[in-house]
């Protein structure tokens, strides 16, 4: 039996006396799409922060393609193949759209200080290659026309897409999307659904936190539901839709 693409088991993180995430497990056997849902404050983003090394979990293990990611710094997690976007978009505002994606190529550009100073042929080639990849990714998310603009000047929906392109530039095996559809209109949601589907088609697993039910139901093969930091349900969209505990968590008792 081969190791699953991604596995998080028993992740726990407390802040003082508050257990923000408690015993959360999630597994992606292959490059599929899973969703993490739950009411506000359920610990979804904390869960992502534990996965990506921004927080150090108190307990639990994270594995990616058989490699143990526990205790790694954020950049090492990224090198291992786990990339992410942020709930409150965190682009590099005073860099151009193209530079944002190029920044994501850092680990794959092995140019040294000396090569940069001397502008060696190998350096020029690597730089040109990175620009090629970055442009291809911008094309993929539909931002080619905007490559010279400052990231801060992009409209909101496009900033979300740029964040996905930047994360893809790190060549992830699994991509974590933290509320990619937040604040989008129905048209933009439809485009986003197509985009995430194409990401999976590139053989990248996707875990997404989302409130937008259309997005979750259309994309996710499995859904994990958190409430007060604890997993209360997991299953296919159809199972989750009918789960009494999920309905209770979202709508309250007696609904």
């Amino acid at each position: 039996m081969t190791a699953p693409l991604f596995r998080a088991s028993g992740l726990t993180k407390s802040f003082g006396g508050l257990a923000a995430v408690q015993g959360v497990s999630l597994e992606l056997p292959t490059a599929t799409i899973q969703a993490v849902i739950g009411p506000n404050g359920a610990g979804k983003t904390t869960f992502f922060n534990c996965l990506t090394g921004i927080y150090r979990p108190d307990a639990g293990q994270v594995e990616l393609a058989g490699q143990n990611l526990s205790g790694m710094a954020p950049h090492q997690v990224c090198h291992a193949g786990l990339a992410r976007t942020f709930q409150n978009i965190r682009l590099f505002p005073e860099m151009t759209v193209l530079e944002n994606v190029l920044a994501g190529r850092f680990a794959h550009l092995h140019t040294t200080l000396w090569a940069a100073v001397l502008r060696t042929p190998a350096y020029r080639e690597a730089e040109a290659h990175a620009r090629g990849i970055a442009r291809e990714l911008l094309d993929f998310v539909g931002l080619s026309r905007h490559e010279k603009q400052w990231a801060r000047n992009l409209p909101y929906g496009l900033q979300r897409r740029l964040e996905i392109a930047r994360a893809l530039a790190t060549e992830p095996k699994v991509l974590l999307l933290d509320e990619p559809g937040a604040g989008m209109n129905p048209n933009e949601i439809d485009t986003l659904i197509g985009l995430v589907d194409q990401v999976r088609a590139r053989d990248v697993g996707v875990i997404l936190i989302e409130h937008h039910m259309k997005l979750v139901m259309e994309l996710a093969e499995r859904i994990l539901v958190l409430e007060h930091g604890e997993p209360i349900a997991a299953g296919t969209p159809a199972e989750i839709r009918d789960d009494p505990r999920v309905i209770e968590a979202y709508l309250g008792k007696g609904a």
Partner: protein
Amino acid sequence: MKLKTSLLLTGFVLLLSAPLLWGRLDPDYSLGTVALGLDLARGLEFFRNLLPAIALGLLFAGLLRFRHRLPRLPRPARLDQLKERSWAIPALIALLWLPGLFLGSKGLSQATFAAQYVLLAVGLNITVGMAGILVLGYSAYFAIGAYVFAVLQQWIWLPWWMALPVGFAASALMGWLVALPSLRLRGDYLAIVTLGFAEALREILRNGGAITGGDKGIVIAVPHRINGILGLTSQQVAWMAAAAVAVLGVAAIDRIYHSRLGRAWVAIREDEVAAGAMGIPTVRMKILAFSLSAGFAGLSGVLYAGFTVFVDPSACTFEESVLVLAMVILGGLGSIPGSIVGAILLFLIPTWLRDWFPQMQDYRLLIFGMILVAVMLTRPQGLLGSNRHKAELEGAPE
């Protein structure tokens, strides 16, 4: 609008300072009291002396305001293409050398110091401008470069040109050591640590006994200092050396800036958490940035010691650190041309004020401060601190 605000503020500063200027301090030591008397003539004289500076400031502000109507300089994109040519750097050095043959000794020494400040400002810009980490004790690394050269040349044969890489390495190493503990933390810890280090270093230099020469400092031996060769005076050689090192240093920094390292620094400045999540080793990159900054200060220090043939603890003062920081901020954080312009202006303006308006000698710093305030009010992003990315990418090599 901003112009009006800056004029208002200038007026406000003048109003505040007027009583002090009009007043004449008469300390009476025997009684231990200070009498404040009014001296109308002296106050009027001050304002009369101030007129040229006000005129200069207005001209400057006017140039900024109507800069769109001025004849345009070569477009940055064209400059960027020019920069990529292999002959661009030697040509620029030669172009800077030529006037050195005709300048007088005073002009040459000013140009030499200006080139050293350019190196300092562009070097500091790596940490402060690109990576966005405040540094308050930058002069320490300048002093390390100067002192490593001065101390070593007492014992071994070490002419200034051989000392350049040694000074760079020593300062970069020291910068690395200082940054190592402080840059693991987020925030402005480096500012405090470097400030403390610079203050401590000055005391060490003052109390270093025979090794550092204490307050008296060290004189660079004749064969090791910058001497005249091939019929050139020592001042001409010093200018040529400073210009060449400055051009090569700035070119190196510019190239690093456009590589993945420069992008990583800017990414860290823009959002450190996101930079880490995108695979950029933030701690290592911040330490590298500061270490490089320190190294370029070391280069500048060696040039300084070789030219003035003398170093003492005054090479390591807080005022110097702040002056270089002001150059970077005035020019525009993160902008290499900005740092160059900032360095030249902030070095030359006080010198010109001293030379052209000697009667204003006492108010030099006041006027200097007013110019700084006026510039920052009219252009808070610095003189050349905007649209860097647009300009940069339009001429980017494919």
